């Protein structure tokens, strides 16, 4: 029989996780000897917490939260792979507003999710903008304030928002990646407890192998599965087919790595550690464990 | 007072002209209650006129519709289709707004959170009259009903009879020109009851208040009223209207006069006649 393994995702079912869906549907986890339980995420789902309670064996997490849980709370997490080489975290605005760099945010109103507030402030600082030069208000996933001009920019993933704003308001939108403005880091980091890494190494390798296969399959046929899953995995997730396609296409560049998806090159790890340092979270190389990647 | 209409005119369905102003006109007013078990006919359509300043007593068996009639006059129940009630040529809802109506229900209905004095003063507040200016009235009424010393007591701290007396005082506090009393003395002992009878006569005489008194005391009815309306039950209707001939003011000694007893007996008979042909 297959070994049960539960995988905590970080958000609801959308193209961001299509690689895993492909692997599930093709039976590649089963082939690897795994009985995978896929747990979708949501605003109340904190993947690291799922790891801590044992609800999940593997989770997709964010860098800063994971690192600070390790350094400040004594959690024993290991990041064993990075889905996104470059995090889609961006400052998104209407082109007409004329925001072409972080500096241009001076005097503007920005909607920022409270969770990203600290990081965003560091980003401002790195670009020579002081906190009092920008008016920051909470952002709750809704593009309406941007489209209607209630705010000048929002902090969000660029994988769908710019497209949606253009679609709904007819105005062109643009984005500035955090990655390109002094805060390079990855996203949807594959994270496990150190203990799991020891005891279930084989299963973890099998998981990573199958997942990579899923993503490779997606990269090879970027539109096929997005369309195919419209009425299965993506049913009821709110996306229009066009938005889903946009999402699927645009995320590929942020994920691809010559060494295969999930790769964590030394250079990349250094960049992430540097970012952690800038936002004031203590961390070192031991946060990352590249040994699994080497076995793939 | 002596200009009372003959009994016939009172019961006549087509109310004829009477001498002097008429305060209450009840014209073919019946009352049927709708209940889950079907309609309940409380009152057959009845007609009655009460001249200004008259004292009318209403007697009849339990459940014959006395309270219902009184509540219709107060505008608390609407007569069935086809009937009408007018008080001083106005709809009861209109009339009662003028503050000329005084009423004591069969149940004292005191507000449990108000003291005796505040309960007595309650109608003043409803009518928007300044309570302060009427404090002396309130106090004198409380004394009239023998509750001096209980001004600040709450209803829960009173005996049954005391509560009823608060309700009597309350019915008088607005100095009404039309007074409706539904068995106001039912919970009082005979001595107090007699005393209250005398007081009521005094107040009525002084103000010429048009008064309708529902009572089970035949002697009380005869002692106080110009006219006694006898009702029968099933269905509720007016059986007879009897004029009381005794001169005013009537003294307590009247209670022991043979004429008085004769009239009481006559009324008892009329009440008994219920099972008769009518």
């Amino acid at each position, binding site marked *: 029989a297959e070994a049960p393994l539960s995988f905590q995702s970080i958000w609801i079912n959308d193209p961001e996780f299509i690689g895993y869906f492909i692997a599930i549907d093709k039976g590649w986890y089963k082939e690897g000897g795994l009985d995978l339980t896929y747990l979708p995420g949501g605003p109340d*789902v904190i993947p690291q917490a799922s790891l801590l309670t044992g609800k999940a064996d593997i989770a997709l997490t964010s860098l800063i939260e994971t690192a600070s849980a390790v350094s400040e709370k004594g959690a024993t997490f290991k990041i064993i792979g990075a889905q996104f080489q470059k995090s889609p975290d961006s400052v998104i605005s209407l082109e007409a507003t004329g925001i072409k760099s972080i500096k241009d945010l001076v005097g503007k109103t920005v909607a920022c999710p409270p969770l990203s507030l600290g990081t965003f402030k560091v980003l401002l600082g790195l670009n020579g903008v002081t906190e009092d030069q920008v008016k920051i208000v909470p952002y709750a996933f*809704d593009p309406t304030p941007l489209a209607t001009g209630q705010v000048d920019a929002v902090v969000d993933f660029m994988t769908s928002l710019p497209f949606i704003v253009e679609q709904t308001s007819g105005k062109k939108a643009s984005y500035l990646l955090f990655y390109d403005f002094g805060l390079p880091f990855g996203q949807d980091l594959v994270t496990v407890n150190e203990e799991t890494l020891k005891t279930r190494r084989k299963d973890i390798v099998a998981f990573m192998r199958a997942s990579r296969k899923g993503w490779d399959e997606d990269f090879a046929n970027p539109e096929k599965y997005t369309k195919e899953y419209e009425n299965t995995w993506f049913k009821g997730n709110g996306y229009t087919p066009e938005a889903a396609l946009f999402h699927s296409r645009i995320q590929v560049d942020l994920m691809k790595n010559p060494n295969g998806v999930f790769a964590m090159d030394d250079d990349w790890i250094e960049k992430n550690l540097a970012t952690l340092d800038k936002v004031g979270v203590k961390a070192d190389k031991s946060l990352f464990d590249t040994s699994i990647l080497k076995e793939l | 007072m002596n200009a009372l209409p003959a009994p016939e005119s009172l019961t006549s369905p087509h109310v004829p002209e009477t001498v002097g102003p008429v305060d209450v006109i009840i014209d073919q007013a019946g009352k049927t209650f709708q209940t889950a078990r079907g309609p309940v006919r409380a009152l057959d359509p009845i007609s009655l006129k009460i001249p200004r300043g008259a004292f009318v007593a209403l007697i009849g068996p339990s459940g014959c519709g006395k309270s219902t009639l009184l509540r219709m006059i107060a505008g608390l129940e609407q007569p069935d289709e086809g009937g009408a009630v007018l008080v001083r040529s106005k709809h009861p809802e209109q009339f009662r707004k003028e*503050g000329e109506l005084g009423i004591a229900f069969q149940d004292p209905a005191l507000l449990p959170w108000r003291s005796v004095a505040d309960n007595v003063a309650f109608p003043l507040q409803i009518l928007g009259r300044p309570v302060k200016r009427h404090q002396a009235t309130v106090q004198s009424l409380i004394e009239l009903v023998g509750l001096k010393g209980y001004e600040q007591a709450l209803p829960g701290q009173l005996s049954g009879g005391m509560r009823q007396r608060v309700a009597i005082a309350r019915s008088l506090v607005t100095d009404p020109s039309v007074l409706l009393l539904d068995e106001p003395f039912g919970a009082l002992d005979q001595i107090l009851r007699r005393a209250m009878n005398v007081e009521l006569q005094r107040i009525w005489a002084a103000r010429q208040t048009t008064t309708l008194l529902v009572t089970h005391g035949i002697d009380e009815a005869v002692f106080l009223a110009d006219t006694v309306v006898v009702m029968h039950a099933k269905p509720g209707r007016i059986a007879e209207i009897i004029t009381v001939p005794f001169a005013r003011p009537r003294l307590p000694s009247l209670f022991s006069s043979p004429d008085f007893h004769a009239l009481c007996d006559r009324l008892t008979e009329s009440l008994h006649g219920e099972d008769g042909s009518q």
Partner: protein
Amino acid sequence: MIAPSTRENARILFGTLIFFAVWEFIGATTSWGVAMVPAPSRILMQAFADRELYWLHGSATIQTSAIGFAIGVTVAVVAALLFCLSPGLELAFRGINIALFAMPAIVIGPLLVLFLKGDWPQTVLAALMVYFPAMSATLLGLRAVDPRIADLVAAYGGGEGKLMRYVRLRGALPDLFAGFRVAAPLAVLGAVLGEFGSGTRWGFGAFLLSALPQGNPARLWGIGLASSAIALAGYALFLLPARRLSASSTAVTLAAVQTAARSNGGWNWQRVTLAGVSVALPFVIWWLAVTLSHVSPIIAPGPGRTLMFLIEGRQAAGARAALLTALGQTLPIALLGLLAGLAFAFVLAALSLLAPAVARALLPIALVAQNMPLVAVVPFVVLVFGRDVTASVFMAMLVVFFPAYVLLHQGFTTVPRAASDLVSAYGGGRWKQLVHIAIPYSIGHLFAAARLVAPQALLGVMVAEWLLSGVGLGNLLNISRGGLDYDMIWAGALISILISVAAYEAVGFIERKVGR
């Protein structure tokens, strides 16, 4: 001749038509209308296009809220029975009761998701939101016994058991149904909130979450209105039996003594002990749960660790400062929201006496607004109120007014005929009825309403802070949860619960003062 009520209804119908016409016009023609207040026709067309999704999501939400409601209400009724039979028990459990109700969804949501599987996180959240209001209202009804009837039962040797069985249970039905009317929409709200956060695929909460980033206001409004409609259906379901009951439930005559719905016994040592138990019990249960479940203390610190977090160590001063600052921002607004919500509830309940037709016209709008998922109305609220104090007060008011309204309205309808007849006989109109009879008669319901919604106000403000203003306790807890700072979350939850308990007791204190 047209009856005045018919004319009034016609006017209201006309007003409603105008309302929709204006909405349609604004929603179709103005740019901000198109973006934020889509025209009714557009909402309907979108809903038609989405009909299959509505079916899938709607049936999930209905099922979750129905099960949550059933669980919450069952526990509530059993608890109310026990508390009625043993007032000491009620006192001892007061801490737990309020804690269950005042536990911020921001805190409880992630915990439920962690420890429960399947649909249970949202089901339990619905049950939790249902429990306290249903229990409070039922208890209020159980305790209010006509003293004359109590004497009768006693005279025939009947004890508390017989009184309960034959008098309290039946007498409590109207209040019980009022509790259900409060609880049914809250169950839907809880379910939607749970679905929103838990990562489940089906349910209006999930639908809302997925629609939110898609910039489709017509769909957003459609989802909001649809979940509001489910909530209202729950409310209406329990309005019907209440209407039928109320006629046969109020005494014919006025009792000379009003029952004190709450025991206002003095502070003897027994009460002091029970009050102590009431404070200690939540901590004991907390400690037991944490100890027995072996959860990582990072996520579930025990009471000791949480207190230490605030008292000891290098970060304690910082934590205290952060909490104090947050409270300084949150509390004044919560108080304002509480007062505004109570005032609005009062006005609406009063209108149902003073101008029933107006109340009938206003009520649906107010109830729909109250039951709209808050996230869906955020852009609209920002448009109208901006993001400062007014907006937060408005959001708190939205949360507060509904339970308060239902209880107040229930109180107003229990006035015996004898009392209102008295006012009518002296020509007093509806206003006098309200001031002199309905309010003093239902003073127990009034305070019950205030006690019930005091914790709610705090929660409402916290939601507003999380979604709108980005300050205060709501924001602090939200940020902490992302940073896995569960010490701060539990400390914040502890403090908000303590404040809720204090508010609850403060209302009780005022009630005892007023009731002499």
